[in-house]
């Protein structure tokens, strides 16, 4: 597979403090376009806070975030999405009164344009947009194997279906990089394998995927590169094999072995 060798995401000296509590301290790393990268770390290591900062949900205390060589440190969440970076959340966040299809159609908001005025009067522009959005959403539902559940209300989806629908929804935004926060949480072994296959397939189209995970097996299995956070600091970054044998990572997870 050919890869474009440029850093799609570049984080430099990122620090985030909540009052006196420092959640992230001087975290720097880069992610090459087209990669599939895992972020791991013990509870409270700052993984989700990192995603919140990158996606514009939290204001950064100091440091810089570059996305496609553009400074996005101070952008609002929907502006970041507009540039091509989307995220999911630890708990599934569905538009629960809408069908699965409508959820994904909502994701096409940025990619299929219309206007409030056209929508009000049902002008041809609005009808065309509707058609296009529906087709695109249907394609994505096929990709995540939910096309037969398109008309089911989102609140009736199972957890595994809901997570796949979320992935379809974020793909619909025309993103170039996906940030997934614990996509496998609560899934059983089969569903995990399906998820891994799906993420591989998405990645094979050139999409960059970054995921936070508790399931270390899944990460080692899936990712080309792993970032380890501990106490808000970058502890290690490297290939799965290197991370597995890294003494610092071992200690972060298992604790030190000296006497009490």
């Amino acid at each position, binding site marked *: 597979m050919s890869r474009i060798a440029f850093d799609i995401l570049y984080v430099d000296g990122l620090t985030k403090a909540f009052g006196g509590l420092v959640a992230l301290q001087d975290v720097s790393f880069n992610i090459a376009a087209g990669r599939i990268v895992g972020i791991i770390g013990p509870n409270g290591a700052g993984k989700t806070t990192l995603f919140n900062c990158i996606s514009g949900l939290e204001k950064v205390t100091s440091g810089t975030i570059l996305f496609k060589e553009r400074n996005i440190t101070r952008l609002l969440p929907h502006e970041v999405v507009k540039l091509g970076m989307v995220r999911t959340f630890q708990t599934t966040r569905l538009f629960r009164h809408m069908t699965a299809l409508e959820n994904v159609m909502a994701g096409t908001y940025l990619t299929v344009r219309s206007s409030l005025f056209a929508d009000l009067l049902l002008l041809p522009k609005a009808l065309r947009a509707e058609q296009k959005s529906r087709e695109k959403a249907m394609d994505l539902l096929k990709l995540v194997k939910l096309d037969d559940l398109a008309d089911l209300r989102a609140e009736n989806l199972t957890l595994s279906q809901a997570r796949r629908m979320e992935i379809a929804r974020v793909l619909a935004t025309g993103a170039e990089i996906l940030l997934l926060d614990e996509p496998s949480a609560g899934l059983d072994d089969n569903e995990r394998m399906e998820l891994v296959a799906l993420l591989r397939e998405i990645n094979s189209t050139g999409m960059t995927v970054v995921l936070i995970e508790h399931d270390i097996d899944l990460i080692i299995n899936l990712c080309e590169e792993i970032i380890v956070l501990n106490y808000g600091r970058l502890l290690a970054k490297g290939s799965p094999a290197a991370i597995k044998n890294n003494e610092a990572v*071992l200690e972060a997870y298992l604790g030190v*072995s000296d006497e009490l």
Partner: protein
Amino acid sequence: MSYNYPLFNVHELIAGYGGIRVLHSVNISVDRGEPTALVGVNGSGKTTLLRVISGLLHQVSGSIEFLGKSLDGVPAEKRVAFGICLVPESREIFANQSVQANLRLGAYSWLSSSKMDLYKEKLDFVFSVFPILENRRKQNAGTLSGGEQQMLAISRALMAQPKLMLLDEPSTGLAPLIVREIFRVLKELNKTLDLTLFLVEQNTRLALKIVKKGYLIERGRIMFSDSAESLLEYVNKVGFTHSAVENK
């Protein structure tokens, strides 16, 4: 020390949130006075198990027995009087109240005007365990440092006169020195009081140092249980992924 009879038994426990199952047929048995640890990476269901035992979460099926009696239908606030106390991971101290008020609330389940002597005695005991809390007794609990908050959380549980203390990740977010201090105290308490520790930890090596027996949990299933020494050996061998499948 002899462990003659079981303190609590978890039998074929299934539990979760909404439609999501977190625990699948968990079986655990802990003898009185026998400190036990439950280890496993985060997200494997450790906290959920503690929530079920303490009554904050209802199981889908299965049962828990405490001193031979079923805990079915006993709400969390009543389990405290039975002698079950949970020290939650986030400490959950009452930040807007003073240290002493927090400790007094710890004794809520048995405190009455006729038992003021016992209350004073318990308070003195707790202050002897963690002298720093005595200095801070008038201070708002929210102003304590992380380590002091953990000490307060443990002390508050001690005030309830528990027989079983469930500890959820007492080391989270604390500096190594303080972690060691707290673990030293826990080991002490287990020896001197009629108190059984059931410890949930990510910091596996440390946890296995102060207990006799350990359970390894992975994705909501108990993989196996063994003496602390053998479990420690196993964990050191396979590394932090813990997975029996992956590392064979």
